């Protein structure tokens, strides 16, 4: 395959308004969408705003929507499109736009702050932590997250309902709660912090209706829904909706207390 000229439509504008602008641009063998956006920048629109960083799918900066689907521009190869196909690139549509393809992702940083941090276990100093691989596997999967926020963007709970942003942490940060709750040495419970209950009461786990778009768009292939959100829902159900567990904990606590 040699070079050809592709038709791109790129959203340009800011919070006051904007629209899709047409570009005819050269495409070469092996290129990705971000290469084409860079070529537009270098040759046709020097001030085209785009956020990017590593261009290797590791940093999660170049999130955008390509033909309506949330994706990383650096990991979307041009070869997935027909040569005659128009490629439409817009900013993430769940967040406020700043300029062109750049959006204000502050929502995510705000939510990150609302998840209580790892609580180190009392009595264990640095170098004394012992954890087994099978115990860290689950949380390690979630720590593969590169915080591209595509899951936060695609999640209809906030994408389609701005008013839910206050109450709902979004898949990325519910997964963070799951990660900490499954961390073998997290001592939140000893410190009086119930992450399972908080997931439901403070981070809006109940808003999630497990329609799995977060998993579909995750560029790291993390099974957000099956391995983080649903297990977290089950853990919350343990706390709040399971009379057997409730009864069991009452019975078990009594002799210990008495």
């Amino acid at each position, binding site marked *: 395959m040699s070079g050809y000229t592709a038709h791109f439509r790129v959203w340009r504008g800011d919070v006051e308004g904007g629209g899709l602008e047409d570009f005819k641009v050269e495409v070469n063998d092996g290129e990705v969408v971000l290469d084409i956006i860079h070529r537009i920048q270098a040759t046709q629109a020097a*001030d085209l705003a785009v956020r990017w960083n*590593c261009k290797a799918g590791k940093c999660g900066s170049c999130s955008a929507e390509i033909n309506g689907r949330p994706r990383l521009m650096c990991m979307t190869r041009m070869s997935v499109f027909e040569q005659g196909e128009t490629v439409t690139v817009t900013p993430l549509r769940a967040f406020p736009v700043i300029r062109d393809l750049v959006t204000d992702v502050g929502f995510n940083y705000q939510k990150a702050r609302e998840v209580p941090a790892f609580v180190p276990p009392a009595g264990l100093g640095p170098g004394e932590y012992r*954890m087994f691989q099978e115990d860290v596997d689950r949380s390690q999967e979630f720590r593969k997250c*590169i915080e591209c926020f595509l899951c936060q963007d695609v999640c209809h709970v906030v994408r389609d309902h701005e008013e839910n942003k206050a109450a709902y942490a979004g898949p990325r940060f519910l997964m963070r709660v799951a990660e900490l709750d499954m961390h073998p040495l997290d001592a939140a419970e000893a410190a009086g912090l119930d992450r399972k209950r908080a997931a439901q009461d403070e981070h809006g786990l109940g808003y999630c209706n497990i329609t799995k778009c977060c998993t579909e768009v995750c560029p790291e292939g993390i099974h957000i829904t099956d391995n983080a959100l649903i297990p977290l829902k089950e853990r919350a159900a343990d706390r709040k909706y399971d009379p057997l567990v409730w009864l069991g904990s009452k019975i078990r606590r009594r002799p210990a207390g008495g």
Partner: protein
Amino acid sequence: MAAVERQQWDVVVVGAGGAGLRAAIEARERGARTAVICKSLFGKAHTVMAEGGIAAAMANVNEHDNWQVHFRDTLRGGKFLNQWRMAELHAKEAPDRVWELETWGALFDRTKDGKISQRNFGGHEYPRLAHVGDRTGLELIRTLQQKIVSLQQEDQKETGDYESRLKVFQECTVTRILKTVPDSRSAAGSRVSGVFAYERETGRFLVLEAPAVVVATGGIGKSFKVTSNSWEYTGDGHALALLAGAPLLNMEFVQFHPTGMVWPPSVKGILVTESVRGDGGVLRNSEGKRFMFDYIPDVFKEKYAESEEEGDRWYEDPDHNRRPPELLPRDEVARAINSEVKAGRGSPHGGVFLDVSTRMPAEVIRRRLPSMYHQFKELADVDITAEAMEVGPTCHYVMGGVAVDSDTAAARGVPGLFAAGEVAGGMHGSNRLGGNSLSDLLVFGRRAGWHAADYAADTDARPAVDDQQVDAAAAEALRPFSAESQQPDAGPPENPYTLHQELQQSMNDLVGIIRREGEMEQALQRLAELRVRARRAGVEGHRQFNPGWHLALDLRNMLLVSECVARSALERTESRGGHTREDHPTMDRRWRPVNLLCRLADPTGGLAAADPVRGQITLTRETTDPIRADLLALFEKEELVKYLAEEELYE
């Protein structure tokens, strides 16, 4: 005076990668109100791309490991040019820095008995790299990021404001370090008073006043065409320090990582982690030969296997066999690949073959090298479990950097300025070992934050910011918007993207992995021309998130730093580590104790000098401190004679 928002902080950290965040954590924990400024979003710094691991002699996998062995490996890797006190501190403190990460929530891969697992890497005698699959840098950055958030949560509980003591200014670029006006009445010279920055999102200017500034901005790779570095690596911290009057050390040493992707063209340079070789991957040329056996240099002859059989046995029984030469330090492997390609034994796209598919079962490859599997599958349509990768050298790391005091990370000659991480020089000598970078970030990030906080606390009166400098910085930053009106006769303004591409091509072709005197002189000539043109780099549009403008401003830094590299490389007439001269192909013991320092030619900070011969940079030679006797005693005499000059040996 331009309308500029001003804020007061105790410590300002420029850069939010591993070193910057570790410095910020330390400074805040020691009571300093700390601001972090970064060009990207918080948590996106180049550190995320580090794959292999963090080198620390914890002896979890091989009980013989200790800091002395790590120190020895580091000095060997750096060909004895390392600032030895840094290498000593690094080797001693790295394990504590790794263990500390666990108390902040990091989850490393584990050994069978529940400790942090450690893997083999080039140049390290024992398995030493704490790792998480092949995404260790991501784990490091996320852990530090989350530690920062946890400190902010504490502050919020106490003061009601998350950002009262520790604030991250993301997507903000520093263009100048501000200094006090020298006071003729006192003996004290000029010292740091703050930084001048612009917000990328709005284009607004910002002055953060602070007695102490830590630069932790990483490297310079974006001056080269084929690089594993991200757009941020424009040598900002190097240039800021230089412009503030601090010297840069040994800038000729640029590490070319032996294994970057070579195809397709758009991903050329993206890193292929050294773990591929650490875990059993082998290099072959087009004839199918494991050519590295032909490239073991004399100084390493006793340490590496002589036959494929011995090399293969080493993975299972490292105590009784020597390691395969694929695990030589990076400079050796990169040069070997370069030679093979030149000799016509390269792969179809101009690299060599790196093969794991015949060495490990597919399932093991996918588990141990998940990002590599993913990267090749997605970007090159190559299934690394079934076929070999094509790889070649890529610009990866700069060993040179701001000359610092080993213990305090204080930059020389500029009170209040500190540097840590890749931007600081000295630690790695002429070549860095894989895995020593992440530990460097943590060890010296912490030290920089600590001493910056101490320095700020010892400062009685807040150093006054000079309004003239602020105005000058604002005018400098706005210049690209009026490129046309400044020199109306000189023709249309220059496109910053074009200038950048020409700079990258020149550095790649003329000051790349193999260097020649004539080519470097040519490079200096081109840099001078580019410098003149860069003054006319113009941009359209306005200041709100305008990448063309950002690049136009970054060009100043890249041109300064590129000149440092070219000038130092021309000066050092030997081959050592990351500096290879075709016209001086061997290591020369007389160069061992020599440091090259770059300083700004025009100390007033003006950049008018366009004369290619004189340029912006002056070079001075400096003799290094002799290595402390007890550290020297860690080596065998026979080994030392290969590196050290006669007079050093018999002192």
